[in-house]
């Protein structure tokens, strides 16, 4: 595709989407409502994100975000896509989390797929910082950082408590299935890996430590998917890997070193202490989590980080998506391997 055609196509997409959204905000907020300032924010392979404002007849301006499924076929090798959910389900999870008392953007309406758009959901565009390396470093977040680990624990306890019968259909990944899934991914690469095999062995010997609750899991609960303002946690974002699983997997994941942005002394997302995370989890009604159970899920998280790195690299190596960035991430798999080998015995 030449640059001209690509640009033209983007323009057509943007114009079509403007028409779709104008019609939709009219239905939701009443006739005379229109949209303004539509811009594409990012394009992962698994979704599109757009920013726009709804302009109400009384002059009010509502800052909004649209996330929709890609218009084109999804690459089945994309790491996120394997476990990913559709946008309708993602928006629904965000609504349920908010109802459960989790700081999360409001989701005022959805888009149905038709001949002009793929399915999507619209959420409030909240003020705050989502860039992990700024959250761990900038002076303006000093006070927020002091509370953030506790608040992350509390928020997780709340979305883990959402009754299962309220949830939309989700992939069920209890711990044994999650281990099988990841081991299967590595096996498919045809590159046996002693370090990760040790992790699988170690984890399978300790399945009783994992705990036996099955709840909604965020699936990518980490610094980078949190919106933070001066008061602390302002929103839990990016629910696209939501699934049913062991809730403590979310707590282990937020502790792995990949999200500390160099601030290694703060195990929780580079901003907080494990004790605060667990205190918050207990205060939010999640019960007391033992350090042994957390360690189990940290080891699992390190393994999972390694598998994600390899998955991205093999998308390049197997020719699905040639990219110097993706292939280079393959060399970061050893970060997960190194860290988990320090945690196991």
């Amino acid at each position, binding site marked *: 595709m030449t640059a001209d055609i690509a640009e033209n196509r983007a323009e057509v997409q943007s114009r079509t989407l403007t028409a779709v959204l104008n019609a939709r905000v009219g239905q939701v907020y009443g006739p005379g409502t229109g949209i303004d300032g539509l811009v594409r924010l990012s394009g992962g392979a698994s979704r599109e994100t757009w920013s726009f404002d709804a302009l109400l007849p009384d002059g009010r301006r509502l800052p909004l975000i649209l996330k929709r499924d890609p218009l084109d076929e999804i690459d089945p090798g994309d790491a996120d896509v394997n476990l990913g959910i559709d946008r309708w389900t993602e928006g629904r999870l965000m609504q349920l989390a908010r109802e459960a008392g989790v700081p999360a953007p409001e989701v005022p309406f959805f888009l149905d797929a038709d001949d002009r758009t793929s399915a999507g959901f619209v959420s409030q565009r909240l003020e705050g910082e989502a860039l992990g390396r700024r959250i*761990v470093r900038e002076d303006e977040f000093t006070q927020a950082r002091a509370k953030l680990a506790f608040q992350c624990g509390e928020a997780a306890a709340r979305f883990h408590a959402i009754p299962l019968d309220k949830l939309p259909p989700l992939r069920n990944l209890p711990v044994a299935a999650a281990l099988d899934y990841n081991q299967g991914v590595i096996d498919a690469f045809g590159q*046996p*890996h*002693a*370090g990760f*095999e*040790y992790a*699988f*062995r170690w984890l399978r010997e300790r399945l009783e430590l994992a705990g036996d609750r099955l709840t909604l899991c965020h699936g990518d609960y980490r610094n980078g998917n949190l919106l933070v303002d001066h008061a602390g946690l302002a929103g839990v974002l990016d629910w696209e890997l939501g699934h049913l699983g062991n809730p403590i997997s979310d707590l282990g994941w937020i502790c792995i070193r990949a999200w*500390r*942005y*160099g*601030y*290694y*002394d*703060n195990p929780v997302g*580079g901003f907080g202490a494990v004790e605060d995370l667990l205190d918050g989890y207990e205060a939010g009604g999640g019960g007391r989590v033992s350090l042994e159970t957390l360690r189990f899920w940290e080891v699992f998280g390190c393994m999972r980080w390694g598998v994600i790195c390899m998955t991205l690299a093999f998308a390049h190596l197997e020719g699905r998506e040639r990219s*110097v*960035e993706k*292939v*280079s991430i393959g*060399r*970061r798999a*050893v*970060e997960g*391997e*190194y860290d988990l*080998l*320090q945690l*196991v*015995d």
Partner: protein
Amino acid sequence: MPTDRPNVAELVEAVREFLTDHVGPNVEGQLAFHTRVAVNALAIVERTLAQGGAMDEAELLRLKELLHQDGNLEEMNAALARAIRAGEMDDQRAELLAHLRLTAADKIALANPRYLTPRG
């Protein structure tokens, strides 16, 4: 491999310097980011050329001791992975873990030596 200069390491170094000094400053956005990624990838190649041989030798020695068999690095690592999965290494946990930790530390030293140094 030819022994004539420039040798492989010198060629890779030249390409890395070209990307750092001449491409990086003249591009922005995604292209600048991917240039940094490419520079890092070449730095991994340079470190591997300099240190990888000695690391391989030490790793192979450890593998021979652990597995009581012979083979090249790839075969031995595959054999170790299979043995761990089959539970055949369960009675030499301490030696196995020591080996895996040393191997991972070497791999980190090649892939991203700064990983072990906190910035905070």
